[in-house]
């Protein structure tokens, strides 16, 4: 073995729910020792990296992932990952992934939100450098985290978010960074001819002079693909390419993908949409919680099986026992709510003392629906009734007064907390005037914060420390304290456990259950099916802007939710929510 990895693991502390682990990684390789650039983030010695990892359970870090992989005579892979492990700060998102992508094959990668699909793809395409592991090209390891090198090898990633310069024309975008030049001048004519040819290949009939800003999203997508194939391409990675396409446009994209596969390109297709995956792919890799569950021939798996493999987990003991709500009165009733382009015709009731789950894929309109209810977003139509009376809220502060409702944002750093402020200032920002409308009574504020620190078990070593220095879990606790400080009757938790450690997750689950038990109406918007199933009394499933199903009691299962969310099951005909 020319390259050596030692992972030295020392368990420092033993927690009940989770254990933090200090990992001292000694990364050495005779070949790389001379190339210091490979580990630029390493500390002074260049060979040691110290990182704290936060692990859900014991010894999983080094446990080999269970994989069923046929080793029969398949053609050699062009791109492969070997023991890819990746951590963002304290959160490990990929555990020792081994995968092979073969020329001429469409390989689907599926998994729930946060399963690690996009991270894996970014590593494959050289955007990210993995914490551990190798990427192989044609059987040989290549330098990871080098986008340019991967592009030269013909590995192209088409992002979930499009990567075009809006103000440049189609032609300029196609050749951005790869312009053909004659001396100091651009070779306009030559690029034009090449550009036209490549657009033809993807079946796009638009003017090369059009600014990309003026294109439809689907056209942009195709321009992106055209850009990818205008240079040599051996592996084409598409990260949720159909998220914004109509069915017709999707059809055309499939034809293009097919033709590329036939031409010997390895296609990696990342998607949530099981029908598409089933139809398009030859093989399928399922990721769950950063682990590779299985890689199999697509034909061998039914959609139901795929869903089961995607969601099946065993963290159920994190959740408090479900106590059915004692009250039956409505806290809120929503009738035919519309947000142009984001939510259409949503009607449902929210009862006091219940936890109502909102499930669905990202972009299904769950967040937007509740933002509209809370006056954070403009609704074009619809009624909000509280105690049978219509209530109007044009701003969040009005909604807080008239509905006594609060919203915990899914975007902690973008919408929830001012990262440059300290924890206390963040805590008191919502409803600051309770500490005095003319002057802020700082002693009262400090005391209130001290109480919140105790109540929510927030770990702040210094009050004036900017909140960006706290861990994700502690930041989330500050955000919870901020939102709950006003004693609300209706609480909307939007992805309350995103990017935080398991211990804090469990605390938050208990907190939500406690809030409901106190008679407050709780809404849980989450992409983690496990917490929806583990916590909610009722679940509303949304799919492309609409409510498609309402589930209650034993009908709340991960499989059932996923089937509605992905559109495998058609919407429930009668919805009485």
């Amino acid at each position: 073995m020319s390259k050596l990895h030692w992972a030295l693991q020392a368990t420092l502390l033993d927690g009940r729910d989770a254990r933090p682990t200090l990992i001292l990684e000694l990364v050495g390789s005779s070949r790389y020792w001379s190339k210091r650039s490979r580990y630029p983030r390493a500390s002074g010695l260049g060979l040691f990296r110290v990182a704290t990892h936060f692990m859900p359970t014991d010894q999983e870090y080094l446990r080999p992932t269970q994989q069923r992989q046929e080793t029969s005579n398949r053609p050699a892979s062009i791109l492969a990952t070997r023991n890819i492990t990746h951590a963002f700060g304290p959160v490990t998102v990929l555990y020792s992934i081994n995968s092979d992508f073969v020329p001429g094959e469409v390989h689907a990668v599926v998994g729930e939100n946060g399963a690690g699909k996009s991270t894996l793809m970014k590593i494959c395409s050289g955007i990210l450098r993995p914490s551990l592991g190798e990427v192989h090209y044609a059987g040989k390891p290549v330098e990871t985290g080098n986008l340019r090198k991967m592009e030269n090898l013909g590995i192209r990633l088409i992002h979930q978010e499009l990567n075009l310069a809006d103000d440049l024309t189609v032609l300029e975008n196609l050749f951005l960074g790869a312009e053909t030049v004659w001396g100091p001048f651009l070779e306009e004519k030559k690029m034009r001819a090449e550009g036209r040819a490549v657009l033809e290949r993807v079946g796009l009939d638009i003017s090369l002079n059009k600014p990309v800003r003026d294109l439809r999203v689907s056209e942009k997508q195709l321009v992106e693909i055209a850009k990818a194939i205008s240079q040599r391409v051996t592996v084409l990675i598409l990260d949720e390419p159909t998220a914004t396409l109509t069915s017709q446009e999707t059809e055309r994209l499939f034809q293009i993908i097919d033709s590329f596969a036939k031409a010997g390109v390895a296609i990696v297709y990342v998607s949530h949409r099981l029908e598409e995956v089933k139809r398009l792919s030859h093989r399928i890799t399922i990721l769950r919680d950063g682990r590779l569950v299985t890689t199999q021939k697509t034909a061998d798996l039914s959609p139901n099986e795929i869903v089961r493999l995607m969601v099946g987990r065993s963290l159920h003991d994190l959740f408090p026992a479900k106590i059915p709500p004692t009250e039956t009165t409505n806290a809120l009733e929503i009738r035919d709510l519309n947000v142009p382009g984001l939510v259409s015709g949503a009607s449902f009731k929210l009862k006091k003392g219940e936890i109502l789950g909102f499930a669905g894929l990202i972009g299904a309109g769950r967040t937007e629906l509740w933002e509209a209810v809370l006056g954070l977003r403009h609704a074009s139509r619809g009624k909000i009734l509280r105690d049978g009376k219509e209530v109007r809220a044009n701003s969040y502060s009005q909604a807080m007064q008239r509905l006594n409702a609060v919203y915990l944002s899914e975007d902690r750093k973008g919408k929830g907390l001012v990262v440059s402020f300290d924890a206390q200032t963040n805590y008191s920002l919502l409803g600051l005037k309770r500490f005095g409308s003319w002057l802020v009574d700082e002693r009262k504020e400090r005391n209130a914060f001290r109480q919140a620190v105790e109540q929510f078990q927030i770990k702040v070593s210094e009050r004036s420390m900017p909140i960006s220095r706290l861990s994700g879990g502690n930041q989330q606790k500050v955000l919870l304290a901020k939102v709950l400080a006003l004693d609300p009757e209706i609480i909307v938790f939007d992805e309350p456990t995103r990017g935080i450690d398991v211990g804090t997750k469990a605390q938050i689950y208990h907190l939500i259950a406690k809030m409901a038990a106190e008679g407050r109406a709780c809404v849980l918007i989450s992409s983690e099916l496990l917490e929806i199933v583990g916590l909610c009394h009722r679940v509303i499933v949304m799919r492309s802007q609409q409510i498609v199903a309402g589930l209650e009691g034993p009908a709340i299962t991960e499989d059932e939710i996923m089937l509605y969310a992905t559109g495998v099951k058609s919407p429930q005909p009668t919805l009485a929510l």
Partner: protein
Amino acid sequence: MKSAELAETPVAQRGSRLRLKGVGQWARNAGPLAALILLMILGMMLNPSFLSWNNISNVLTRSAFTGIISVGGTFVIVTGQIDLSVGAMAAFIASLMIIVMNQFADAGWSLPVAVAVGMLIGLLVGLLSGLVNGLLATLGKIDSFIVTLGTMGIFRSLVTFVANGGTLTLNSNIREVYRPVFYESWLNIPIPVWVLGVVVIAGAIVLAKTPFGRYCRAVGSNAEVAHYSAIHVNRIRVIAFILQGFCVGLATLLYVPRLGSASSSTGLLWELEAITAVVVGGTALRGGSGRVSGSIIGALILTLIGNILNLTNIISVYLNGAVQGVIILGAALLQRNSRTR
């Protein structure tokens, strides 16, 4: 110690990081004050008359215009905006005040009443101008830089227009009545310095101690978070502009009796002086954090540089701008250093 805390920061770094941050914070807070003290020591060494009460009150009085405007400017900049129109606005207000006072005096009103009405109108026009700037920047969704660039041009050219390309002069009988507002003293301290003091203290309290002040910082740090904290982001931004307009009005009330005239060159470059004062005082130009006390120190530093150059012969007075430029760059470097991690 519980587990979550460990995950926060790598153990080895925790202590040192905190200490470093403390130093940065201290440099940003005390830097401007230290610079001011250094300048004063320098002035003292170069010319003994520097410390005379006459010279000090002269420096303070000269700082009053920029100082008062920079208090409003602190609010605008802390909310993440900028106001380039203040100099032109001051000239515009000054010319309106002169016209109004002259008209009322000519119409036979008693002179003190004419002056009072003129002053009131000056303040009102300031408030209104701020409101217009604010509304254009928020409801009009135009970047405040562009908005105030536009209104700056409009104000400036309106002044030239009403003055018919020349100079508007206050009638001498009115000037006699109005003069004390700039030239008189109370308890041996000139009136403009009193006004400056009141504005600075009020501004400092509003920015540091009231919900509004904190909302300003929240809006400037992250408008989205402010929106999701039930803060009316646009309202805060407009109020900041109105405060700026009010401060410009107030500064102009003190400025008009000084010369008793207004022309197209009145208040020239005040906007840059005010912005410089705010930034030298440690307020981040991108918004989110700042202190009124820093801004006034910044204004004093700027005046002191001119004053010291005037009192000594080491550097030519013509290099005043260059020395100010060096100070600005130094302040910017200091701020940058305190933010690097």
